[in-house]
């Protein structure tokens, strides 16, 4: 669904108009700085971690749930991976065993995050805790665990190969962007071309009907949150590599921004609606606004306020167009 078919989908049309509008606005406001390759490379470095986290948030929202534990999951995965890396690899001296350690660290990060997803899924579907509370609980639990493990200190000094994930460039295009594009495509494929993906949308629209059409609702929810966890694990790797460190409490301000990006991209918080292309458009809009305003020297808090205004504007537009459709 990364294909662009704005004609069919009015929400994508609105989003692409906003995208073009914000692009032109920024180009006018700051013609010298904005239209430079460096600016776009900068954006391409920043977008992937927020993008992966937003995908993690999006898939939980498609089922009508929410995943507040994404940042905490990301941090705990990064901390585990960083501990493995820093304890067995000396970044100054390359040795032949490094490759295996790096692979193990990456696998551990992904495994931890998927495991957290599994716990979330069980708490929500088997124990029957509302998603917002279950993930709030695991968020606190993991934040606490991260502090207990690290005592609040930063774990830093990653080997060169790991730093490549977040900081490397191929043909002038940042490596994290490749990672993001591939996994965004994978998410779109998973949602649109697999049975589980179909069931996720179905569950989001009507859980009871989904149950009576013979779907194992518990399995759908558990898979959703495991997938959500997996994307947190990916974000953990990118973030750990970009910051060259791991710490409890990194990126906490991203949590609400991911919800904002998902909703801006057309994901309905009641579940059942949303697609990856909308989310990607929304992410690019947020990034352009943030970078553009940063270039003309506006405080990052004003950017946050403007994001809020854009979000309300989009919701109001959705409401108005929805009303028109009902009347017609």
């Amino acid at each position, binding site marked *: 669904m990364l294909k662009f078919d704005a004609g069919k989908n009015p929400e994508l049309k609105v989003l692409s108009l906003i995208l073009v509008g914000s692009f032109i606005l920024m180009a006018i406001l700051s013609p010298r700085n904005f239209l430079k390759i460096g600016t776009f490379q900068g954006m391409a470095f920043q977008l992937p971690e927020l993008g992966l986290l937003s995908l993690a948030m999006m898939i939980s929202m498609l089922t009508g749930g929410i995943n507040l534990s994404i940042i905490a999951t990301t941090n705990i995965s990064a901390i585990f991976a960083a501990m493995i890396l820093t304890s067995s690899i000396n970044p100054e001296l390359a040795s032949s065993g490094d490759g295996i350690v790096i692979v193990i660290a990456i696998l551990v990060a992904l495994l931890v995050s998927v495991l957290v997803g599994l716990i979330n899924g069980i708490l929500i579907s088997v124990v029957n805790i509302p998603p*917002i509370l279950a993930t709030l609980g695991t968020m606190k639990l993991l934040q606490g665990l991260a502090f207990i493990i690290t005592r609040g200190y930063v774990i830093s000094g990653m080997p060169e190969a790991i730093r490549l994930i977040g900081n490397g460039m191929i043909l002038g295009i940042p490596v994290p962007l490749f990672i993001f594009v591939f996994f965004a495509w994978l998410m779109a494929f998973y949602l649109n071309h697999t049975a589980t993906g179909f069931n996720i949308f179905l569950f989001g629209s009507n859980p009871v009907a989904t149950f009576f059409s013979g779907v194992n609702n518990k399995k759908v929810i558990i898979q959703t949150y495991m997938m959500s966890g997996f994307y947190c694990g990916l974000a953990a790797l990118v973030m750990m590599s970009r910051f060259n460190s791991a710490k409890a409490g990194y990126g906490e301000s991203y949590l609400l921004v991911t919800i904002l990006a998902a909703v801006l991209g057309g994901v309905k918080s009641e579940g059942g609606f949303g697609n990856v292309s909308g989310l990607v458009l929304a992410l690019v809009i947020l990034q352009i606004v943030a970078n553009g305003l940063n270039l003309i020297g506006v405080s990052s808090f004003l950017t946050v306020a403007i994001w809020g205004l854009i*979000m*309300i504007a989009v919701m109001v537009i959705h409401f108005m167009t929805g009303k028109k459709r009902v009347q017609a």
Partner: protein
Amino acid sequence: MKKLLKYHETYLLIIIVLLSIVITTKNANFFTAENMFDLLKSNSFVGIMAIGVLLVLISGGIDISFAAIATVSEYIMAVTIIRIGGSVLSAIAIAVLIGTLLGFLNGYLIYKFRIPPIIATIATMNIYYGSLMVITGGKWIYSLPDWFRSFAEIRLLTFLNSNGNPYGLSVITVIWFLVIIVAVVILRFTILGRSIYALGGNRNSAVRVGFNVFLTETFVYSFLGFMAGLAGVVQALLVQAVAPNSIVGKELDVIAAVVLGGASLSGGKGSVPGAILGVALLAILKNGMTMMAVPAVWYEFFVGAVILVSIGFSSYQDKKKSNNTAIIDVKEQESLC
């Protein structure tokens, strides 16, 4: 006795009593009047916001922006009393007015444009807090007037501890108690209270029965705004300084406390005693950890565990109960709402 066991609040009370016994055996200073009065004072800030959050949750909504509202009201209040002067009453009036206005805006957006409350309030949180930080540059305020400082030290009951230091019932705690009484009266004895429960229970039914949904919905968010404004003043009284970044980020903790008290996020359920017990549980947990010399890094972990165990327990019971009942839901009709 059997009837008592039906209430969520009873279990919560039992947990609090058990926790208190454990803490007291480790450190006898916990169960003293001085510590209790101190807890009541220092938690009145969270307690006041919790009452506001309770009403929103009962109505089936949620609000993420109240911490931002509290910060904005607190800041404007502080700037006004420093520049223009005034009294405690005018300080409260300013903060409460701003809080109510911002809360009303939330309610209006949610009702008028049918924006899901969590989305609308995340957006307004960013707008309120972002604008405040842009305008003020995030500067802290220390130089609050002397009368503001002396008001915070008023006690309605005063005792002396063994060292001869006074302690007792602070005026700040009394503000919290007044808020509790107001909330109980609204929820128990007014039509408005009934309509809040009705709206949270089933929106369509509430419309059909003839409750004014616009009034109810804007009321709960305005009420939370009011409480956030009041809590902002209380925070300033407690800390005697205004730090724009000290409250924001605590919103989920307050919601967690209220939910621990039995309020349901799907609406229609919740009580004032429950919300107070929820706040008390988290407060005693934190205080008890300090008393038992448990490292502070464990606090978040325990909070998470308490939330999961307590809510998991009640959710699992609800699930067993609902397996024996059928739910017949009417289809939502646009024209009605």
